[in-house]
């Protein structure tokens, strides 16, 4: 039952997504490649499509669901990516409010922040390996990363620029 497989995978990703969806990208890619749903470059391309849409980057789940099982797959994967973590957040946010000034809360926050940083950098290195098959692609990645860090250029403009260079440089 393909819908059940989608729901189980993305419910797991939902609860693993410490610091946000990006940190689960390598695990997500490993899982979908192992199931022969997508190849690694297809995953990178779908991620590019997801990033070109407005909205949170969990939309990669929507696209994988669409690819695997059509519209019902897209909706099942999206719901599975959201429901477990949102439920947890709603439950915990009541407690969080109560322990606003507690020492342990700041300790937990200080412990999580660098782990999130490491996981995000791992996700970036994974996407770079999947997307950058030659020096031109690597140059696009580097320039976009620099613009993201050092300027306020609109992200959509950077994505469009990358796509345009792809079309012009290869076609």
């Amino acid at each position, binding site marked *: 039952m393909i819908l059940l497989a989608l729901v189980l995978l993305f419910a797991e990703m939902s609860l693993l997504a410490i610091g946000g969806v990006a*940190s689960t990208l390598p695990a997500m890619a490993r899982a979908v490649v192992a199931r022969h749903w997508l190849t690694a470059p297809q995953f990178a391309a779908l991620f590019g499509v997801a990033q070109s849409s407005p909205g949170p980057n*969990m939309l990669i789940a929507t696209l994988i669901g669409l690819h695997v099982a059509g519209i019902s797959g897209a909706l099942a994967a999206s719901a599975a990516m959201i429901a477990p973590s949102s439920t947890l957040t709603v439950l915990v946010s009541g407690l969080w409010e109560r322990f606003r000034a507690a020492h342990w809360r700041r300790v937990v926050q200080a412990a999580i922040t*660098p782990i999130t*940083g490491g996981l995000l950098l791992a996700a970036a290195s994974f996407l*770079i390996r999947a997307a950058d098959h030659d020096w031109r692609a690597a140059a696009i990645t580097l320039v976009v990363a620099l613009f993201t860090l050092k300027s306020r250029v609109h992200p959509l403009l950077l994505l469009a620029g990358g796509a345009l260079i792809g079309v012009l440089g290869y076609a």
Partner: protein
Amino acid sequence: MPVESQRLTHAEMFRGFFIAGLSGFGGVLPFARRIVVERRKWLTEAEFADLFSLCQFLPGPNIVNFAAAFGARHRGISGALTATVGLLAAPIVIVLILGTLYERFGTLPVVHHGLGGLAAAASGLILGTALKIAGPSLRHPATLGIVVFAFVLFAVLRLPLPLVIAIALPVSLGLAVFRVK
């Protein structure tokens, strides 16, 4: 939950989060902040940072968590659903259209090359954002150590994510106990 006069209606929340979702290219956070704090003054800057930091360290899509927690605070479970659906309705429809186009035309050479450039740019976007978020942690030896440790466990040794967290979190908590006064 706030007193009745300060509780937002379902319609108000749906509209606010719908606009945030629709404008959120390359990350919804700045748009959500602008609407919730600056435009509609639903939360102060400090209240927003407080609630968002919770959503960041709980698992899941941060901004979706934020919508759910914010919605629940005002209208309980139906409020959480309203804010979440409002946030995601437009992006999901748009990404489904883009995804359908990709499934149909993705193998055409010109589209294929364009998507190659797009994927390279998208990975650059994530790299830049990752460096921004990791930035403060890279400046102190203890937190830099944890960043490198988590990176090596996940990207180099390729351990499964639950195992990475099970190993890195106790170490990081141990160091944080000494660091945080």
